[in-house]
């Protein structure tokens, strides 16, 4: 215990022009803990059965003390968690925090990004309303278009050939049990690695650093302030803009008009729309998915592709690549939102 205490007291954080981005990781952690707590509260009342799921949410929102508030907190907590997560991902990408020796930090981080997206999708599906139902049909159908492994993933996620009550049970298991435990394990590893390696300093700033700031107590308190303000924003949004719930899903009904996925899927949605139905004699959608998968795989393995950063040299090509990813993501999301 004493060595831990001594270690904690000696932990310092670098100071430089971009050190404000260091707050993003901890803030993501805070928001996910917030989601765990509000999620546990909601899980006391939610019924994960196709017949009763929708009604249980309606009951929570209308009949329980402050039920609407907790659901609203969970909804807005999720939106902000994913937003801050993207800020964290893109800032570490552009500041090249993934470079040697921190490759594993990046890889574990990417795994958590994928988990978080799935958290969002599975959580949203639990509403069992028309929009959620259609969204999961599209998402699992899209996964099914992956060559070779598509049908396996699709069958596994859906719990069968089509989206049914089995899918709901499965997604509930993912959302409240499987994903939280995996997240804790991976996040533990991720955070441990950061403690071991310390915070990465961007190459351009290595010689321009100010004095390192001690984590305890200085940055601990600064983190607290940032977390408190974020909490304030989440609570305010939750109180003033409680989310609605659509009509109960009917597996036999046609998809509702103007169906759109959650905002963090919009860029994928828009990308798919760019590809024509048929290209060079092959299914356009399959080609689109292959290209997207390749881009995501490249993103995942970027520490190993960026050789110059690994050697501690400036790597402007990868700064451009990173910027392209960010701009593409932002532009496609905005377009998806506006159309």
């Amino acid at each position, binding site marked *: 215990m004493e060595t831990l205490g001594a270690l904690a007291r000696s932990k310092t954080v670098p100071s430089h022009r971009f*050190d*404000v981005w260091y*707050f993003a990781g901890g803030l993501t952690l805070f928001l996910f803990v917030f989601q765990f707590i509000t999620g546990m509260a909601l899980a006391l009342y939610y019924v994960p059965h196709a017949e009763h799921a929708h009604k249980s949410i*309606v009951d929570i*929102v*209308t009949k329980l003390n*402050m*039920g*609407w*508030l907790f659901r609203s907190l969970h909804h807005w907590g999720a939106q*902000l968690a994913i*937003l801050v997560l993207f800020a964290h991902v893109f800032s570490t990408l552009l500041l090249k925090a993934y470079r040697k020796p921190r490759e594993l930090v990046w890889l574990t981080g990417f795994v958590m990004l994928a988990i978080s997206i799935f958290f969002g999708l599975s959580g949203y599906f639990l509403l069992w*309303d*028309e*929009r959620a139902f259609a969204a999961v049909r599209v998402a699992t159908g899209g996964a099914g278009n992956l060559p070779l492994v598509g049908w396996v993933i699709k069958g596994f996620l859906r719990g069968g050939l089509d989206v049914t009550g089995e899918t709901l049970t499965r997604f509930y298991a993912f959302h409240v049990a499987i994903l939280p435990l995996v997240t804790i394990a991976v996040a533990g590893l991720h955070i441990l690695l950061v403690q071991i390696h310390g915070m990465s300093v961007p190459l351009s700033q290595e010689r321009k650093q100010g004095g390192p700031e001690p984590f305890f*107590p*200085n940055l601990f*308190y*600064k983190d*607290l*302030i*940032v977390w*408190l*303000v*974020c*909490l*304030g*924003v989440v*609570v*305010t*949004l939750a*109180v*003033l*803009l*409680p*989310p*609605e*719930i*659509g*009509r109960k899903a009917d597996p036999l009904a046609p998809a509702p008009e*103007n169906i*759109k996925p959650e905002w963090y899927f919009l860029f994928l949605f828009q990308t798919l729309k760019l590809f024509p139905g048929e290209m060079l004699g092959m299914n356009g959608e399959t080609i689109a998915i292959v290209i997207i998968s390749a881009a995501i795989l490249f993103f995942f393995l970027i520490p190993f592709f960026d050789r110059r950063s690994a050697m501690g040299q400036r790597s402007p090509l990868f700064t451009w690549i990173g910027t392209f990813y960010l701009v593409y993501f932002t532009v496609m999301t905005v377009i998806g939102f506006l159309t």
Partner: protein
Amino acid sequence: MLRVFLIVLFFLIIGTTALCAGAEPKVEVFPPASYDRHIIYQALIFFWIGIIGLVVIIAMKLREIKRVQKMGIDEEEGNVPFLD
């Protein structure tokens, strides 16, 4: 401190944008509990007083810590003689 302030500003901008942009189109509306809406607003005000109070106090603590650290009295002295 300036950076912390910038982050706080970032959040306030996000928050106000979200509030103005409103929610996406949905089918049904469940209003918050059939309370007097004022009770909810009042609770929100108390909540913000709590949060802002906490932030201000933490900032006060940070100022004090910086003051003490500048004096250098928080560092461990190497050869502190023991009373044997």
